[in-house]
């Protein structure tokens, strides 16, 4: 199974995302922002970082990169897409996911090992987790406050589309402690914390993040 990892100018975590794909047993395929071609991959990860220096708004310019055109079409058609941190911001700017990410309410960059609860195990990226499983993975962002209007928030909750929620202190002011969400179909997932940094005990606080990558690989094998 081939999982593409997009590199934008300013992406930081593309190498770790590719490594996580390999640790999970998949083949990582490097995708370039300027190349409007997904090269036949079975799923795509939009990694963390500061694409285009976070100019204008986080993810706002990356959203119009050539690679995003086929990616947005494919995501609408059911291709599994995971947006991590800056990738989540890109997915919101692309309107593949509702809402937006704004500056942390306490105005400081936050970097810590973050407890989360997996709220939905019906997405392409979380099917391998147990319902309500608690995990700890790194969180590192300056603009991670998830916001949306009340109607959208109610819709997300009502349809079971909140994928992961912060446990303990809310780290960034996200409404309803939302750390990650999915689209109606469950193939597109965005989250602020970094599962790709928690796939090996040598470097991560846990290996709890591996489930995102094994989930999608198992789903692709079944499909």
């Amino acid at each position, binding site marked *: 199974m081939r999982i593409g990892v997009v590199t934008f100018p300013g992406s930081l975590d593309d190498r770790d995302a590719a490594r996580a794909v390999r640790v999970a047993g998949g083949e990582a395929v490097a995708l370039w922002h300027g190349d409007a071609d997904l090269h036949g991959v079975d799923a795509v990860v939009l990694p963390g970082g500061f694409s285009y220096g976070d100019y*204008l*708004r986080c993810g*706002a310019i990356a959203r*119009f990169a050539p690679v995003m055109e086929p990616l947005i079409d494919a995501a609408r058609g059911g291709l599994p897409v995971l947006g991590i941190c800056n990738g989540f911001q890109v997915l*919101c*700017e692309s309107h593949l996911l*509702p*809402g*937006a990410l*704004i*500056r*942390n*309410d*306490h*105005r400081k960059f936050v970097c810590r090992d973050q407890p989360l609860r997996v709220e939905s195990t019906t997405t392409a990226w979380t099917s391998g987790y147990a319902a309500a499983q608690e995990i700890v993975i790194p969180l590192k962002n300056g603009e991670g*406050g998830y*916001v*949306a*209007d009340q109607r959208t928030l109610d819709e997300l909750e009502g349809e079971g589309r909140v994928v992961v929620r912060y446990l303990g202190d809310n780290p960034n*002011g996200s409404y309803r402690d939302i750390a990650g969400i999915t689209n109606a179909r469950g193939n597109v997932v965005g989250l602020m914390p970094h599962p790709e940094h928690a796939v090996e005990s040598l470097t991560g606080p846990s290996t709890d993040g591996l489930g995102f990558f094994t989930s999608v690989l198992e789903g692709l094998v079944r499909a």
Partner: protein
Amino acid sequence: MARVVVDVMLKPEILDPQGKAVQGAFGRLGFEGVASVRQGKRFEIELDGEATPEAVAEIERAAATLLANPVIEDFTVHVEAGV
């Protein structure tokens, strides 16, 4: 040549931590009588030609597509006089 200005502001219901930080600095520096500060963005766009209704409509489209995120921001477009 004409100049079109796009002002982008966070919607009133969206928290503006940058504005809050500026407001805090106002207080520390002794600037008084400030109830609140909200920070936005201003884009000055020079056109090749005149600010025809079509040209301004094009900038409005750009503002809605790229310069502002309508989920969290409002924008206004106006033609600057005397440029």
